């Protein structure tokens, strides 16, 4: 029997096991929506903006490990979703984005709502397709899912012209695909893995530096075995949080620009860096020429271009983290003995010394303004038993959450790392909630970033996605303000947000629940109320506006040269500034 392109698309999505898509309709995709409306296998979450649809699909993908799917219309629908595609590309998130296109006869004619979707998305997708013939649709969707989810995952766009969604063709879903120019390497080179094992056995001061690749390849178990067997401390990147249990005695926490003192010192002074599924991003390396100057480097990554892109690698291993670690563990299991523990005793002594010298710290006065770190810490303590999924936006609150919310397992951490997309957190949290309706999904946001996709509150209410948003409300673009305080002599150019809305009333206007914790003493009760509410909740927490996020490696600085607290000249400048973040002091803050 012949099916229309729209029906073929839906059958393909079903065959790929898609249960939920995030979508916003428009002229050229009406047929697809009409067919979606007449079936019950795939749930359509109607978003209020295409960027939201894209980030929701990302959140869905990060939490499930499967490809997230979004569907947008041509022209502005496409341009709106580009931020999410670029975000997914940077963070290797498997995404299939279906975009509508004007009819093939109109392409290139500057038709209504026409945009060059292929041209627009080329630099921010792993691959993209324009389907010109309905007979190619099924194989194209198959290839799209295959490319998005294999190798180093990434976003794939399928552009479907209106006439293709209407035209009919015989439908058979191909059972396999073969693309001659695309053959990811999964098994690592055995000789190289042996070299790595030997280097690990000999190293006196080794460190594991693990990233998002461990999460995507589901190699957390293998990583834990490797770390425990060899007694090597573990540094995590922002994207790698959750790959190794945050409370594990061998966890050093996050490294990089706002990483822990210990994590950065350990990587700087180590003699063997074992990078697993991480890409030596500039936020991790700081000054790249002085990154881990004393170390040999082993780099395990599925993407050959990641290797030797930023730093010299002594033992490169191209392959899937899980497969390579499994092989590596097998060799080490046969060779490892008690000697390594003795060999590395001085290293561990040094590490414990670093940990004690400068642990993560903040001062919370019992009657003073609420410190943002304290909010994250309390949220963590109150929710950790429920194994929550945590999303963040981008900025100070993101770094504090990365520091204080110690994730135990992978696929619980939804954050925008590479692109640093403000407005990511809330829709991503909703995407995860759509995948796991019964789980607790938290979104820690800033008052600046939450406003970038606030419109999705309507989606959360209507689609019953009871995400809990905790706004660390300092009425600033906090990270911008921090840099201005440190490097621009405290001139707050466009970082003070002034007319912040009343988030409680805003939540209520959308039909969600709005709560506020105005005092330190109220915090626990309000957070508890939020997490026990079965609706979307916004918790507005006014925080001390001038809190800075430390440790900090200034851009282009060296990893062992961290700023650990406000420098003296900043302390002097801030001496006259009020210590409370409550509303009455708004004017004083402005003139500070």
């Amino acid at each position, binding site marked *: 029997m012949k099916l229309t392109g729209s029906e073929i698309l839906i059958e393909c999505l079903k065959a790929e096991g898609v249960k939920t898509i995030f979508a916003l309709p428009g002229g050229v995709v009406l047929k697809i929506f009409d067919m979606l409306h007449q079936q019950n296998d795939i749930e359509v979450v109607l978003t209020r903006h295409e960027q939201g649809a894209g980030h929701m699909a990302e959140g869905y993908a990060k939490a499930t490990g499967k490809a997230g799917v979004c569907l947008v219309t041509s022209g502005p629908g496409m341009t709106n979703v580009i931020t999410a595609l670029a975000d997914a590309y940077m963070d290797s998130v498997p995404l299939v984005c279906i975009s509508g296109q004007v009819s093939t006869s109109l392409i290139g004619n500057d038709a209504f709502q026409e945009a060059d979707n292929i041209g627009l998305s080329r630099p921010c997708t792993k691959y993209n397709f324009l389907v010109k013939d309905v007979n190619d649709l099924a194989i194209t969707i198959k290839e799209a899912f295959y490319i998005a989810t294999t190798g180093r995952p990434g976003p794939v766009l399928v552009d479907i012209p209106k006439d293709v969604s209407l035209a009919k063709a015989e439908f058979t879903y191909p059972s396999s695909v073969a693309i001659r120019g695309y053959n990811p390497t999964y098994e690592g080179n055995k000789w190289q893995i042996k070299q790595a094992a030997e280097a690990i056995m000999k190293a006196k001061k080794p460190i594991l530096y693990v990233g998002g690749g461990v999460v995507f390849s589901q190699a957390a178990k293998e990583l834990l075995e490797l770390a425990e067997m060899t007694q090597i401390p573990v540094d995590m990147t922002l994207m790698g949080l959750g790959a190794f249990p945050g409370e594990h005695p061998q966890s050093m926490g996050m490294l990089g620009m706002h990483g822990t003192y210990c994590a950065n010192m350990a990587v700087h002074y180590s003699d063997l860096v074992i990078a697993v599924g991480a890409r030596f991003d500039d936020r991790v390396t700081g000054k790249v020429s002085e990154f881990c100057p004393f170390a040999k480097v082993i780099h395990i990554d599925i993407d050959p271009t990641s290797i030797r*892109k930023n730093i010299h690698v002594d033992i490169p291993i191209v392959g899937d983290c899980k497969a390579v670690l499994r092989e590596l563990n097998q060799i080490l299991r046969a060779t490892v003995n008690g000697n390594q523990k003795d060999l590395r005793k001085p290293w561990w002594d040094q590490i414990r010394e670093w940990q004690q010298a400068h642990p993560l710290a903040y001062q919370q006065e019992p009657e003073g303004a609420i410190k943002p770190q304290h909010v994250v810490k309390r949220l963590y303590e109150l929710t950790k038993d429920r194994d929550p999924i945590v999303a963040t936006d981008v900025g100070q609150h993101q770094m504090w959450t990365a520091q204080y919310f110690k994730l135990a397992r992978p696929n619980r951490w939804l954050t925008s790392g590479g692109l640093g997309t403000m407005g990511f957190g809330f829709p991503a949290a909703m995407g995860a909630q759509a995948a796991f309706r019964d789980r607790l999904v938290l979104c820690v946001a800033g008052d600046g970033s939450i406003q970038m996709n606030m419109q999705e509150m309507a989606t959360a209410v209507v689609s019953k996605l009871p995400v809990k948003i905790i706004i660390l409300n300092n009425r600033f673009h906090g990270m911008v303000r921090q840099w201005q305080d440190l490097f621009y002599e405290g001139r707050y150019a466009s970082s003070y947000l002034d007319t912040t809305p009343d988030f409680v009333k805003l939540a209520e206007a959308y039909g969600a629940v709005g709560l506020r914790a105005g005092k330190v003493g109220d915090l626990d009760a309000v957070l508890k109320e939020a997490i026990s509410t079965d609706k979307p909740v916004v918790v507005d927490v006014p925080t001390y506006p001038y809190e800075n996020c430390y440790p900090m490696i200034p851009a282009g600085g060296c990893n062992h040269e961290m700023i650990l607290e406000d420098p003296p000249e900043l302390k002097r400048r801030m001496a006259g500034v009020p210590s409370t973040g409550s509303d009455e002091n708004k004017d004083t803050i402005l003139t500070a």
Partner: protein
Amino acid sequence: MEHIISVTVENKFGVLSRVAGLFSGRGFNIESLSVAPTLDPSMSQMTIVTSGDERIVEQIVKQLNKLIDVIKVVDLNESEFVSRETALIKVHTKAEDRAEALRIADIFRANVIDSTPSTYTIEVTGDPKKLEAIINLLQPLGIKELIRTGRVAIAREAIRPAVSQPKKLARE
């Protein structure tokens, strides 16, 4: 250092812009690029002349390989290769210069492929140095227009010794 990279790609629309976009997006250099279908019409062959230090060229080769439409990438500088480029040169020729233009063409084994009372169009093929040389000589006569194809290159086949010798030696 200059590198010539030979890239076999899918012969379908948009591939050239993927390759060109990779170079511009990552700040790699393209000195010349030529592309045409291969014997198998489903594939095209690109010859890209680029430059950069060892690390950059390694990235160029890896990034090209990462493109899904790229089937094979060979950095020709890793072995012996021959390269050629063709130029079409339209020369203004006053009556007294016409013989000189033909003499120059002859020296470089170039062909005159079009002729008018006031111009010759000369086709010349060779390595870039040869092309530069003939252009320099023709310039005083007055070059009206100059088109170059960009280089194409192919790896040299290993020289095979006499048939009777053992096969092993062929690689040496």
